[in-house]
């Protein structure tokens, strides 16, 4: 359709969502602070005002395009209004720009500069400043402009809503429930709130200093780079479609003092190879399907919180980051004759949740420092090296080789595609078809020669994942393998990637990554001979005992909200002496008789000698309501619990704690 913009006739797309997006495509970026194309339209910041048909001034984000409409985008009046909005925002903004993580990337700062705000006519009033540095996502309310981008990203795209607006008027703040610290909430650390925050109110903990400290202390520093990182640096260094980016990063890291730099895509090959064997094993033995991928740590935490009943369906293969971490610490350290304690392994990731993953209890000591793409850019820029002029260096061997499959882990569908590649080599495949079910959900159907069709889904966005899993649970969708990536478009859209991190840039990154992948001569993980060598030398066969020790992990259910448990029968004894039994007192469990269970348990402790070691607690919903009542014994959930089941598990736990003999003598 045609509309008149600033006196000129302009052709815009008929299906444009609003005037703001329509004009964006014809080269006019209307200033805006709260518009997020992937979420609902909010219209709060009022920066995107335009003049309509010579009279009204309306927000262009809420304005539907209409044939022949007359728009003016920058009249003197609009200029004044925008300036006023910016002055009001800045009057209550903690404008400590030089020490802000977002310095130079902040939209508010950008507009202040562009509108020439060198003085403010409004008096400065400070908001209540609350800084939460408890987790890898740093919240600073003094810099929040209440645009709500983070709130909508968390709620609408990711279906989590760990944060929301609270209080009212000038006191309004974006906070978790009861202003709890983020680390104690259901936040999965996907960092999409950070990706969309236009100011420095939400940023990522910067771990750059720790690298220099490691170098200073003479540690053997090893780097490893994720596939998606190399697709995100171009714009920052004036490069266009550069497919040699990984090599350039390697060169800079070597200059900084890294001894070795490996490719996480190598580990991606390994993970795909191992995971395919796990899948085929499950398929042939009729074990739990669908198999969910487990490369994305935000998805893993999401599953642990919301879908504990599907935890046995999560692939036990570690993510590429953690897999390479254990290989380097277990095997490579021996090869180079360096004590694992003296190796500092630095993982460079597009992802905020990878920092969280590396800090998970079961992975302690494998990956020492995780840097996001944004921190990497700072590291490079602070050296003064011109990335454009630097010559690429290949990754170090042996963990520097990767196939197209491993590289494609950086975008949605990559893991599934790699698994399909390996399946094709292991069993006879007649045909593979891929189709888009809806935005964010892709279906790959693999027809096997015995007539069976394996259905693989690749889904991005946790909101999309939630819908798909609910469909699987309700029997609407039939799936055998499901790849879940928490961020839209996969890791290239990770929370740690460069700004802007919107749909447009993500699409561009997908293209660059695709070009990079296309240059790789190895297609399938099986062609990666360094990976095969690793199996020959150390791991043996896929799913062998050794590879279980090195490459596999386990998951545990997590409560969304860390609420202190309620002591019902506390024990004053040592932690090692007791077994903790928590009875769920949530709605479903309550109605399925969890109180009766509680009474039976208390009776048990009075009746049987061994049961004196049980510490009984009440807990809130364990999110497994379908199989109520639930009881948690130490870390194990017992669903559809009855007193016999609890007794059995609790006794096992106690035996394990005390060593067999003692317990069996004293009771049963």
């Amino acid at each position, binding site marked *: 359709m045609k509309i008149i913009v600033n006196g000129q006739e302009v052709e815009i797309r008929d299906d444009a969502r609003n005037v703001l997006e329509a004009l964006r495509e014809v080269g006019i970026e209307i200033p805006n602070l709260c518009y997020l194309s992937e979420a609902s339209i909010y219209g709060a910041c009022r920066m995107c005002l335009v003049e309509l048909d010579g009279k009204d001034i309306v927000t262009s984000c809420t304005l539907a395009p209409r044939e022949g409409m007359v728009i003016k985008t920058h009249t003197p009046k609009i200029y004044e209004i925008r300036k006023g909005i910016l002055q009001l925002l800045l009057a209550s903004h903690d404008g400590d720009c030089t020490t802000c993580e977002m310095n130079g990337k902040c939209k508010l700062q950008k507009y202040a500069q562009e509108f020439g705000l060198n003085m403010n006519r409004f008096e400065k009033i400070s908001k209540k400043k609350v800084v939460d540095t408890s987790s890898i996502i740093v919240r600073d309310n003094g810099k929040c402009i209440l645009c709500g981008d983070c709130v909508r990203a968390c709620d609408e795209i990711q279906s989590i*809503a760990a944060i929301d607006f*609270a209080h009212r008027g000038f006191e309004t703040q974006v906070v978790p*429930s009861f202003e709890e610290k983020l680390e104690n909430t*259901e936040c999965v650390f996907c960092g999409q709130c950070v990706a969309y925050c236009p100011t420095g109110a939400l940023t990522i903990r910067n771990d750059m200093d720790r690298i220099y400290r490691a170098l200073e202390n003479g540690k053997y520093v090893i780097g490893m780079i994720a596939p998606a990182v190399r697709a995100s640096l171009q714009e920052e260094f004036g490069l266009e479609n550069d497919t040699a980016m990984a090599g350039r990063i390697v060169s800079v890291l070597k200059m900084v003092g890294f001894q070795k730099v490996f490719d996480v895509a190598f580990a991606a090959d390994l993970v795909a190879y191992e995971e395919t064997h796990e899948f085929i094993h499950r398929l042939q033995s009729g074990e739990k399907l669908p198999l969910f991928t487990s490369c994305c740590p935000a998805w893993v935490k999401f599953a642990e919180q919301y879908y504990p009943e599907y935890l046995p369906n999560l692939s036990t293969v570690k993510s590429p980051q953690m897999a390479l971490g254990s290989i380097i610490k277990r095997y490579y350290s021996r090869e180079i004759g360096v004590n694992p304690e003296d190796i500092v392994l630095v993982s460079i990731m597009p992802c905020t949740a990878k920092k969280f993953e590396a800090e998970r209890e079961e992975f302690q000591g494998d990956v020492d420092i995780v840097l996001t793409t944004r921190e990497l850019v700072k590291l490079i820029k602070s050296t003064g090296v011109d990335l454009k002029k630097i010559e690429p260096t290949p990754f170090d061997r042996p963990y520097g080789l990767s196939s197209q499959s491993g590289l494609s882990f950086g975008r949605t569908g990559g893991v599934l595609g790699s698994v399909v590649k390996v399946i094709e080599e292991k069993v006879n495949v007649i045909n593979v078809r891929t189709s888009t079910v809806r935005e964010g959900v892709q279906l790959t159907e693999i027809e096997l020669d015995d007539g069976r069709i394996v259905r693989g889904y690749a889904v991005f966005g946790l909101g999309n994942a939630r819908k798909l899993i609910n469909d699987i649970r309700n029997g609407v969708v039939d799936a055998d393998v499901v790849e879940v990536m928490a961020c839209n478009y996969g890791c290239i859209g990770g929370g740690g990637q460069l700004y802007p991190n919107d749909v447009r840039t993500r699409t561009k990154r997908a293209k660059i990554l695709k070009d990079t992948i296309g240059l790789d001569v190895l297609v399938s993980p099986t062609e990666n001979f360094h990976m095969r060598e690793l199996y020959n030398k150390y791991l043996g066969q896929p799913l062998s005992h050794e590879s279980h020790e090195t490459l596999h992990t386990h998951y545990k259910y997590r409560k969304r*909200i860390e609420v202190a448990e*309620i002591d019902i029968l506390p024990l004053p004894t040592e932690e090692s002496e007791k077994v903790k039994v928590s009875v769920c007192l949530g*709605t479903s469990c*309550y109605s399925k008789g969890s109180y009766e269970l509680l009474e039976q348990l208390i009776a048990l402790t009075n009746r049987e000698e061994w049961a004196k070691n049980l510490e009984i607690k009440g807990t809130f919903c364990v999110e497994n309501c379908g199989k109520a009542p639930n009881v948690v014994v130490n870390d194990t959930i017992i669903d559809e619990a009855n007193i016999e089941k609890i007794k059995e598990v609790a006794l096992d736990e106690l035996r394990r704690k005390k060593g067999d003999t003692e317990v069996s003598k004293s009771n049963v």
Partner: protein
Amino acid sequence: MLTRTFDKVERILQKYDYRPEMLIKILLEVQREYRHIPREVVNYIGVALGIPPAKIYGVATFYAQFSLKPKGEYTILVCDGTACHMEGSMNLIKSIEEEIGIKPGEVTQDLKFSLDKVGCLGACALAPAMVINDEVYGHLTPEKVKEILRKLKERQVE
């Protein structure tokens, strides 16, 4: 204590058929029951209704009606509307502080009294006025206020 806590919330939730759109009604009843909105109850409701707790917290902090801190058995609301303010409502607040030691927004340690300053109560003819648990007291002086509080305190002792 525990059993009672959940029984009450359960009854309220059942009354509203676990409908998320009834959140405000449910919170009002919870507040009536507990004299504030306890944190565990927010989480409990969140799970039962499928509403993330951060959203419930947003609702509970938006409306002045809701309190996240326990209110006293006697909730004292002193009117500070224009008429009452002119007639010396601030002196009443001062006398309350002298008598039971709390400022607006606070609760006594024994949870017997809580004090809040409110806008117009619509009883300007009685200025300065206050309300204690739905009972209106008008034409007050600091002495009268202290007298009323003393009586309430004595009633507690019995």
